[in-house]
């Protein structure tokens, strides 16, 4: 059932529910469907509407401090389906070693392992409409102790959760989805350990709001909003809920994305390839996890040159690799012809393919408590404090970046793939310059801000995603990641949502 909380329909939320889920993005919708299939009564409370609106999106505005980052109201979407309304659909699960503590990475280690999420792999692949349930990685061209090839699988077209499950939720008796229901407070009992109600209101100026009561509450509002909600929930605990060790919002991690530079290929190359380090490499060089992306240049549309010049361009392409490399290394302005070039005369417009491309790296960011989501003085239209995001990279990030790039260069040579040219700021370890040049940014992934640990002094939620110090408040989404790994997060977010569904099913219903 889908209802509008901005109208009289809010009376449909008067009866207590088994579970109240805050946020209907990939995490919230997946959890709601899992619980509904077990017969639970679910209140799924979504702040936005069915479509984008400026007023709802404005609630996501915030400030950045540190490295240049995207505007906070542009890196996520605040309406039914959440950021799945603009995600790219690239999927990969975390590797087993991403869950292990690593001595060279302070704070690292999950209280659960890959084996705890594996049982959900097949179902997540089905939800995301990926073909097959696992990720068979292709072999390298030549054996290497340091690297392996990896594969991303695409949800194609990228699954828009709001659209995809709208009709199912509308027809469901178990799920009551409220639109325009913005969480503004969580109320606790006298022991301050149990949530008794969640308070919501619409964006109407004089809306007194309404309460939803449930046996358990799950925050699924995204990696920046989950901590914001906990920090803003100060009506009974001044530091916010779950923040007894000042950890809520800390350890913010992105997947820093860095354009390394151009690549000249030994053979025609017209694909996208990913490589990642082996666990032995990570230990030997004491670096964080990362992946290396190799992308062929897309054919550009350009004006054809005169015939001799077109021939000259093509000559560079057909020349032996050493000659082409020499042209590049000693300074050459020629590049391969594209599909408007001479090749078309001779090869009758084959697939776009080329001898050049570029390389990029995406890496796991180091856990650093000073990278954090904190409250700003400014308030939004609901009276809640906005956020400031502190985002910086540290020495471990720097070492990872430089080590990754140099070994990547050697990998390309060893594998007979090609050679890469790195931009100066990478060799100079100058993040600021790379960031200013637009070569270094994030990947729109917001992780670890309510990280998982069995120790309340090291994390905000426990292995069951329950907020430490509370009996019935949980978090879903990438805010609970204990480390970021290098893989895109949504596949893992869904695995965690299904696992949390099983836990709530057992503890509340079972």
């Amino acid at each position, binding site marked *: 059932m889908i209802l509008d909380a901005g109208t009289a329909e809010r009376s449909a939320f008067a009866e207590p529910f088994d579970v109240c889920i805050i946020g209907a993005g990939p995490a919230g919708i997946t959890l709601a469907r899992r619980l509904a299939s077990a017969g639970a009564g679910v209140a799924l409370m979504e702040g936005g509407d069915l479509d984008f609106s400026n007023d709802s999106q404005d609630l996501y505005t915030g400030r950045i401090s540190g490295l240049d980052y995207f505007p906070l109201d542009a890196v996520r979407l605040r309406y039914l389906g959440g950021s799945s309304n603009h995600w790219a659909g690239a999927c990969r699960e975390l590797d087993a070693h991403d869950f292990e503590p690593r001595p060279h990475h302070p704070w690292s280690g999950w209280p659960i392992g890959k084996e705890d999420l594996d049982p959900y792999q097949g179902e997540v692949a089905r939800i995301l409409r990926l073909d097959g349930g696992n990720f068979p990685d292709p072999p390298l061209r030549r054996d290497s102790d340091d690297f392996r090839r990896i594969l991303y699988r695409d949800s194609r077209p990228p699954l828009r959760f709001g659209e995809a499950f709208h009709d199912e939720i509308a027809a469901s008796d178990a799920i009551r989805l409220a639109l325009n229901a913005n969480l503004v407070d969580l109320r606790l009992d006298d022991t301050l350990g149990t949530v008794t109600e969640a308070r919501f209101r619409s964006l109407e100026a004089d809306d007194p709001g309404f309460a939803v009561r449930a046996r358990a509450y799950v925050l699924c509002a995204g990696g920046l909003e989950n901590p914001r909600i906990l920090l803003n929930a100060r009506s009974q605990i001044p530091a916010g809920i779950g923040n007894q060790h000042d950890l809520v919002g800390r350890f913010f991690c992105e997947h820093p994305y860095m354009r390394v530079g151009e690549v000249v290929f030994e053979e025609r190359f017209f694909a996208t390839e990913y490589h990642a380090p082996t666990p032995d490499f990570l230990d030997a060089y004491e670096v964080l996890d990362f992946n290396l992306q190799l992308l062929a240049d897309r054919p550009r549309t350009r004006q054809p040159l005169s015939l001799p010049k077109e021939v000259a361009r093509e000559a560079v392409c057909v020349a032996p690799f050493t*000659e082409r*490399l020499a042209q590049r290394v000693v300074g050459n302005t020629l590049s391969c012809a594209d599909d408007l070039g001479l090749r078309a005369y001779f090869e009758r417009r084959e697939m776009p393919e080329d001898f050049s491309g570029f390389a990029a790296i995406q890496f796991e960011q180091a856990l650093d408590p000073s990278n954090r989501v904190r409250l700003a003085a400014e308030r939004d239209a609901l009276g809640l404090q906005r956020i400031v995001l502190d985002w910086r990279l540290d020495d471990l990030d720097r070492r990872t970046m430089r080590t990754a790039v140099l070994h990547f260069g*050697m990998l390309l040579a060893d594998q007979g793939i090609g050679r890469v*040219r790195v931009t100066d700021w990478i060799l100079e370890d100058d993040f600021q310059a790379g960031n200013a040049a637009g070569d270094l940014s994030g990947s729109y992934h917001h992780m670890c801000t309510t990280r998982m640990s069995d120790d309340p002094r090291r994390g905000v939620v426990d292995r069951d995603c329950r907020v430490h110090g509370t009996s019935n408040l949980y978090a879903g989404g990438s805010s609970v990641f204990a480390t970021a790994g290098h893989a895109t997060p949504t596949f893992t977010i869904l695995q965690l949502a299904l696992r949390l569904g099983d836990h709530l099913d057992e503890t509340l219903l079972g």
Partner: protein
Amino acid sequence: MTGRRSFLKTTALAALAAAGLPALGASAAPAPLPVRRFGEAFVVNGWILTARDLEALRLHDT
């Protein structure tokens, strides 16, 4: 493919001269470029090269 390639290359080399551009065979001449060493990697003009590349390109580890 090989036949077409060498045809292309011959045509190309002729065209290079016509376009006033350097012939490719002569392009690997020694160049006074600084070579920076990072472990087994050599960086020349930003390019990450192997020791064998340096030899092939007749560049020297300075």
